[in-house]
């Protein structure tokens, strides 16, 4: 079975982000998107710990411990960037001022519920960070994740079995097998890996899928 690589997934997401968008990239897989943003688009990265206009990682030896992203990695600030405090930063997200938010996930349900903060394991130490804010944090919330768990179960589910992060909040899911839109009509397939069929994808996913109108070539 052919799969999108992580970089291919990141490229698919990056290409969908329009010029001028303000974007928050969640921790993990979504961070990769920054490396694939089209060079002819000016896209502003927001980090919820208080900056807009985030630049790339600093050159070796240039890291500033006071200039980090939400993953606590050293970053830089582009000319035109700005700093602000935590309440202002989350007000930007909660108030719907970001255009795009890209998140990782354990599960996404057919109605767009997101589970990405807690495995539900009874011995786990819970930690939520900004996950629940990010889930509602932009005009468009998209998820990047592998389509199947290591044991082959679909992460696209009828109903989340992990504790949810937010309800009805995901607009689109990018997996290593497909790009899926969560719509009021159900889950629609926007794109599949080469050789994948709708029926095979639906079988793997265990949920009903239809082709998105109009279908775009893969």
């Amino acid at each position, binding site marked *: 079975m052919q799969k999108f690589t992580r970089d291919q997934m990141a490229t698919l997401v990056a290409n969908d982000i329009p010029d001028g968008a303000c974007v928050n990239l969640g921790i993990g897989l979504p961070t990769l998107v920054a490396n694939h943003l089209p060079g002819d688009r000016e896209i502003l990265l927001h980090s919820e710990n208080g900056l807009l206009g985030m630049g790339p990682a600093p050159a070796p030896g240039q890291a500033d411990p006071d200039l*980090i992203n939400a993953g606590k990695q050293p970053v830089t600030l582009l000319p035109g960037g700005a700093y602000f405090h935590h309440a202002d930063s989350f007000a930007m997200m909660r108030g719907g001022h970001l255009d795009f938010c890209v998140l990782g996930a354990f599960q996404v349900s057919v109605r767009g519920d997101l589970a990405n903060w807690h495995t539900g394991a009874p011995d786990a130490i819970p930690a939520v*960070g900004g996950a*629940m804010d990010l889930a509602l944090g932009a005009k468009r919330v998209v998820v990047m994740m592998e389509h199947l768990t290591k044991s082959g179960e679909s992460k696209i589910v009828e109903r989340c079995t992990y504790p949810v992060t937010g309800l009805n909040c995901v607009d689109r899911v990018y997996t290593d097998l497909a790009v899926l839109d969560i719509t009021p009509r159900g889950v629609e397939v926007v794109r599949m890996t080469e050789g994948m069929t709708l029926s095979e994808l639906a079988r793997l996913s265990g949920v009903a899928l239809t082709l998105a109108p109009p279908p775009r070539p893969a």
Partner: protein
Amino acid sequence: MIDKIVATTIAAVAGIEDGSTIMIGGFGTAGMPVELIDALLAQGARDLTIVNNNAGNGETGVAALLKARRVKKIICSFPRQVDSQVFDALYRAGDIELELVPQGNLAERIRAAGAGIGGFFTPTGYGTLLAEGKETREIDGRHYVLESPIRADYALVKAERADRWGNLVYRKTARNFGPVMATAARCTIAQVREVVALGALDPEAIVTPGLFVKRVVEVASATPLATPGAAA
């Protein structure tokens, strides 16, 4: 004359009572007032409730306070980190109480306390475990959870510069929770890299006006290194 400058970190934390609620600025180690926390450790107050985004990194700062068993409860958004071993052990042993709050609600609840707001409806957390038992309401077709202000007796924050009135400016993303915490405590104590003359701070760029700050201490030490690899 107003002069909020104190000579030492020990003087800065003098009088903090057992059982106090203490907000501590910082996101990971950026903006964490490590020297004030060290002074608090030396000062000896116990049975504390700590409000911080995290629950300590490594063995210093908030982690050192936890390790010394001074903290009965922590209100935070992200306790579990790669280097949160001190908290993890206390939590698993049932030796610390945890109130887990989504990060944006944490910031807004602190802001509400400082702004005299009695409560607010937030969409964040609706329908999740962290909103269980809380009042909810549908407003204009969107679902909200009622959240309450978080007040503190003390706030310990780290800023870049201050003057004798207590005006503060911060540095880069070390700003994070400092400005809202400074508004929400009965007594806000700031450690700053540099104390400057009154009038030296640009009045257009002051982030925390002096009326929010009670004590300022200059700590010229280098910023501790960031801890890479931990999540938010």
